[in-house]
């Protein structure tokens, strides 16, 4: 009984850990995208006409 519960617990723990890794990566990507968008908007040649990228 313990062996099988250990195996299942480990299986789920590893998958969950990987999922956490993915979501923290996702977080960083979103932050970077937001920062780049801000810079893009700020660096637009003439802000009135909006973005022309």
């Amino acid at each position, binding site marked *: 009984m313990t*062996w099988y519960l250990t*195996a*299942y617990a480990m*299986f789920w723990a590893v998958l969950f850990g*990987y999922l956490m890794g993915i979501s923290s*990566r*996702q977080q960083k*990507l979103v932050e970077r995208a937001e920062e780049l968008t801000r810079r*893009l908007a700020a*660096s637009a040649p003439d802000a009135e006409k909006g973005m022309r990228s």
Partner: protein
Amino acid sequence: MSWWPRSWRQFWSTLDGRTYHLMLSARPWIGWLAVGSMIVVFGLVFWWVPLEAIQGYPQKIFYIHVPSAWVMYAAFGVVFVASILYLWKRTSLWDIFARCAAEVGFLFTTLALATGMLWGKPIWGTYWTWDARLTSTLILWFIYGGYLLVRAFARPDADVARLAAVVGIIGFLDVPIIHLSVLWWRTLHPQPVVMIIDDPGGGLPASMLITLLASLLAVSLVFAWLWIQRVWQERTAENLALLEILLERRRAR
């Protein structure tokens, strides 16, 4: 039918983009199906499927061990096909497909090994035996590891994608030969006397077969979702890097 390719040439030249968009539109479906089928498998394994007569509880590890091993081979297949297509087409999406499949495949190879060991301890009385399948899984783990290390340690001036593609192709071609040689090695030798119970394969009762098939499906869906998500992240990171270059240029002007 505007999305239908007009010629084979067009089909091949846009295959990566089509695959990518198909993957993205299937992503939420795959995600929810993965969660749902995992819950079903949970119920089947813990409450429904009867205990195996000889092994008892440890036999239930079977339902995560076998799917992990299956995903390990499937992921290596994806690496192989994507690597070949990368060398042919040289579009970065193929490289991303291969890279992410190797990463997730390595995870499942580790899981297959770990669950195999946790199954072996109560049944064989030892964590590790030089069983043919266990041995070739370990070798596969090292090959995956080598592939990921080449990517991690490539020199900045090297063409990583090309290098890794070649390693992925050769690694995949070696797998059946390794398996054959390890099988011969084990069967030509007199086996040490340990209690060996074959994995229940042919004469599997219907209830166990249904549980196995359900968990094969569920774990495959989990793999597919993780892979698509990683592919999407890598692709997005690439696009963001392009955007950053654009910004630098604009600032320099």
